[in-house]
């Protein structure tokens, strides 16, 4: 093998790697913000992020809720976030799927209960963010077959699918007992699974992207910037 063919192979490898990276990062995210009121938060106030679990055929994953909370609680203009499970357990039985307030006027009724109002004050909650949504997998195509023989094992084929993560965040201001805005996020991405002896998953991080974009937007929204 001469120097020319060696550099050609290396260039091919780099091209393949670049193509793989491009494929992996093939996710698009759209954010829509609808503001209904002024926002702002002091350093002693907290935000609680809760998942909606009233729908019959899906429920907002606790992992997504904690991802958004974790991201809002770090970096520049970080907010104090009350973990979902800690809040729901402390407020038990008022924030269970069947009893949680669906509208702000339900929240007013709830805050009339002295035990709820006291606990809310203990946590220093200024905003409740309701997350509602799920990630759907569609357009599955391709096939991969794997075989095991005396000489070894291997897979061959190609599979692909599309993930679509749609989440809404409704922000309630506890001070004014009103809804101050809604942020919607829609992230889509195509994942690929080529298999040539070993399967190489090229996964689009759709839900992770939806989480980070939504968290950044929420942080700015709550801070009033």
């Amino acid at each position, binding site marked *: 093998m001469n120097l020319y063919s060696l550099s050609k192979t290396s260039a091919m490898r780099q091209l393949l790697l670049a193509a793989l990276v491009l494929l992996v990062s093939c996710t698009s995210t759209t954010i829509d913000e609808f503001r209904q009121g002024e926002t702002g938060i002091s350093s002693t106030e907290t935000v609680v992020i809760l998942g909606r*679990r009233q729908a019959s*055929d*899906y*429920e907002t*994953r606790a992992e997504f809720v904690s991802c958004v909370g974790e991201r809002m609680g770090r970096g520049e203009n970080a907010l104090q976030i009350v973990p979902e499970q800690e809040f729901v*357990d*402390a*407020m*038990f*039985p*008022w924030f*269970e*799927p*069947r*009893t949680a307030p669906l509208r702000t006027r339900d929240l007013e009724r709830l805050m009339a209960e*002295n*035990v*709820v109002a006291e*606990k809310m004050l203990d946590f220093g909650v200024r905003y409740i963010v309701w997350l509602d949504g799920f990630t759907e997998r569609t357009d599955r195509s391709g096939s991969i077959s794997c075989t095991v023989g005396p000489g070894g094992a291997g897979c061959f084929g190609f599979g692909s699918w599309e993930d679509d993560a749609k989440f809404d965040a409704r922000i309630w201001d506890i001070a004014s007992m009103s809804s101050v805005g809604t942020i919607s996020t829609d992230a889509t991405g195509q994942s690929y699974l080529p298999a040539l002896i070993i399967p190489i998953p090229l996964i689009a991080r759709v839900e992770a992207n939806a989480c980070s974009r939504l968290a950044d937007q929420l942080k700015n929204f709550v801070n009033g910037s």
Partner: protein
Amino acid sequence: MKNTGLNRSLLLLLLLFGLSSCGVSNVVIDGSFPTPNINKMPIAIAVYYDDALKDFAYLEYSETGQEEFNIESGKSHVQLFNVVLPAMFDRVVFVDSMEEVPTLGVDAVFAPAIEEFQLALPMKTKLDVFEVWIKYNMRLLTPTGDYIADWVLTSYGKTPTETFRSVEGAINDAAVVALRDLASSFALSFNQVPEVRDWLNNR
């Protein structure tokens, strides 16, 4: 000789695999339940759990009629009521038999019973959730055993399917959500049951 040993090991392995894939899976519901954050009612009650509740288990059959899951939830029901009831009432006494009650000086006896348990698995419903539905018969009696109120309560819990979670784990999680649902609706609706409300007003 060496070959016979290898064959025996293989046969044993196959037998073990066969046994493990055919048997019924036992799921003992295990969860932790928070203390309700509610105002206590000024009532003293005795609580009686019968054996049917304490040992409650539900058998789920596969589509071919094979026993698939044995779900034991009696202990977790007792655990749940033991947390919820002392948060609801001023004084709670747990009794082993109804005969003990008249000497305790309580206002009423609470005796819950499970009437029905249903499980919905994603492989059967084609939905991406595991669901548990439980129907209860709640009974409130006078210390002498007469009925004050007798009402039906249902609870529901679901949990989404996840790649690295076992079926047993998902059933447990859905049942724990259903138990929390029972606790929340029982605690918040107790004094709205018409017979209970009349009894409370006439005391």
